[in-house]
């Protein structure tokens, strides 16, 4: 690298989103070889249509759940119950709709949506209460609902798959609006809302502060209980919306399988996005990127035809690479080893300074 370019490139190379972006780009390029016109986005019956759109559309529930999870993780917590909340919200909404006289009645569907989301928020607040009010460790507190929640979802669906036939409900996860899939619009709206609450208003600062140092935050006069309650309730809401989306997409509620393991994917997305599990700083953009990487990876597996037996291995491999590249400790180690002998051999101090900068940034 030439000396004049380095100062210009350094901020880019050092940016913490660099590696996730590179990986996402690599995955997308890989698809190009296997799917003709992978990058093509076209209009079909007034709808945008194409593989890229699909990735966002299918990734929408994961993005939503991950957004909520980001805030929870930023407070140094974790929410394992999101998968169950996904199942419950979809189940309740579908149950309500299936018992409507006219499944296409807008009012009825809106009530169903309100019921599903209301219960999700309540369940999230319950998590928040256990964590902030009673002081149970987040992982345990939410584990309770993770396990019990599946049971609740099954109770609602009576162990069956509830199928509904409602075009207004179908809109949420399967419909289009203004040429875009409705799910994408919801994601954009929720992302905008989250960004507004956390970055335009001061919620983000308080969350990062509570996650960064809870005792110091308390002594600074932050009502951390309130912050935690709100964050868990919000996470519940996000999971609830995702649940509606998933069940609406296939017009049915499956208490057993809806949102199964989504909490793990969400946690992964958050971590790939650069938010530390130890709490503190969070990045919404990073999380969206992380969720997109996971979804693109899934799509890639389908389109390049990785045999199902090796799917998990393939996924694990890619995720490991991303996580390693994301870890400053790993980069430091990997490049330090290379640098040491060079530094020892070189006599000029100026030269060594140059070496170091390349090492850190490469």
């Amino acid at each position, binding site marked *: 690298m030439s000396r004049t370019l380095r100062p210009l490139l350094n901020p880019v190379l050092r940016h913490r989103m660099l590696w996730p972006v590179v990986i996402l780009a690599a995955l997308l390029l890989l698809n190009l070889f296997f*799917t003709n016109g992978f990058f093509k986005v076209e209009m079909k019956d007034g709808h945008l249509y194409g593989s890229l759109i699909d990735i966002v559309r299918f990734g929408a529930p994961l993005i939503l759940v991950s957004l909520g999870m980001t805030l929870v993780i930023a407070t140094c917590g974790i929410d394992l119950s999101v998968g169950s909340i996904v199942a419950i919200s979809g189940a309740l909404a579908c149950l309500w709709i299936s018992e409507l006289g006219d499944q296409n009645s807008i009012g009825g569907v809106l009530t169903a949506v309100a019921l599903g989301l209301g219960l999700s928020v309540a369940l999230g607040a319950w998590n928040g209460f256990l964590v902030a009010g009673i002081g149970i460790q987040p992982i*345990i507190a939410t584990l309770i609902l*993770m*396990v019990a929640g599946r049971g609740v979802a099954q109770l609602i669906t009576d*162990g069956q798959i509830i199928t509904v036939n409602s075009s207004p409900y179908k809109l949420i996860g399967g419909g289009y609006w203004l040429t875009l899939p409705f799910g994408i619009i919801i994601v954009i709206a929720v992302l905008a809302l989250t960004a507004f609450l956390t970055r335009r208003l001061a919620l983000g600062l308080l969350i990062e502060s509570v996650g960064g140092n809870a005792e110091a935050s308390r002594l600074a006069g932050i009502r951390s209980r309130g912050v935690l309650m709100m964050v868990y309730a919000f996470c519940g809401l996000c999971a609830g919306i995702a649940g509606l989306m998933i069940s609406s997409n*296939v017009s049915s509620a499956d208490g057993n399988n809806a949102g199964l393991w989504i909490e793990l994917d969400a946690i992964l997305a958050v971590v790939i996005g650069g938010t530390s599990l*130890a709490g503190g700083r969070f990045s919404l953009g990073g999380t969206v990127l992380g969720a997109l990487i996971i979804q693109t990876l899934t799509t890639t597996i389908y*389109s390049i*035809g990785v045999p199902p037996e090796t799917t998990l291995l393939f996924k694990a491999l890619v995720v490991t690479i991303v996580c390693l590249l994301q870890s400053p400790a790993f980069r430091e180690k990997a490049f330090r080893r290379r640098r040491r002998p060079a530094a020892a051999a070189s006599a000029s101090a100026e030269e060594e300074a140059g070496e170091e900068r390349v090492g850190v940034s490469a």
Partner: protein
Amino acid sequence: MLRRIRALKSISALVLAGAVAFTMAGCGSSDGSAGSSGSGGSGGSSDGKIVMGFSQVGAESGWRTANTKSVQESAQEAGIELKFSDAQQKQENQIKAIRSYIQQKVDVIAFSPVVESGWDTVLKEAKNANIPVILTDRAVDSQDTSLYKTFLGSDFVEEGRKAGQWLVEEYKDSTDPVNIVQLEGTTGSAPANDRKAGFQEVISADSKFKIIASQTGDFTRAKGKEVMEAFLKSNPDIDVLYAHNDDMGLGAIEAIEGAGKVPGKDIKIITVDAVRDGMQALADGKINYIVECSPLLGPQLMDLAKKVVNGEQVPTRVVTEETTFTQEQAKEALPNRKY
């Protein structure tokens, strides 16, 4: 430092939680957890009635609920006293239930094993107590086949074969290549492996049949839809979809419709299970053929139980009475489907 330890702890707990919640797949769809527990009851055979102890896996899916109902109803019809218990997906619960049946000196024990292995001890106890055992729906991996009298359940390989046979029949007049995509069940589960193998066995006889893509859809509608969309993107001409269960097929139908094609016409669809939603789609012409995987093995079970108690010889493997449905048959059968 402290932080790091805490984060590590969280992760290990996470893995643990995952392991706890991990369950296996059965006939039809994959499983979740929890459920309601059944009743125990007391006493052995008093009034000459046969007493059967039955330990169910759980109530994890519609298929399973129908299965339970079938067992309970046909016991009543057959005049057999049924002691039913729900293991809630846990082998230990099941072993406990079987031991209690042995103590109560029931006449026959039947159960659907939660997992394949680890049954030898408790089965030996039953054998020593001279209580015959019947396995339903799922097998155990015991070397010693004298530990149970018979295994009653679906033959997943045969289901795959039936699906293949219909396909061969359907395309017998054509010489063009037939492009098939397959939606597999949960990777590694017996129904997924066997339905794939049986299907493959039949269609490999003719080289015009080509499976151009095969992926797992985890037995769920959502996954089925997602995978099918990807298939449709990367493979422009798909002639046939073979889905290992109805639910994935139903998800795929939505994907096909979304891509502007007509399911059942542009793409022929074969699925397995025959649950109500699947049958409805078949009747509506969106699916072309369904191979039944019936949960209604109650009557057969009661039959076998009577024979076993009376000391009659029974075959060690009994296949559930299952059929197949075409679109016309579906229209007829639909009104009186139980599940």
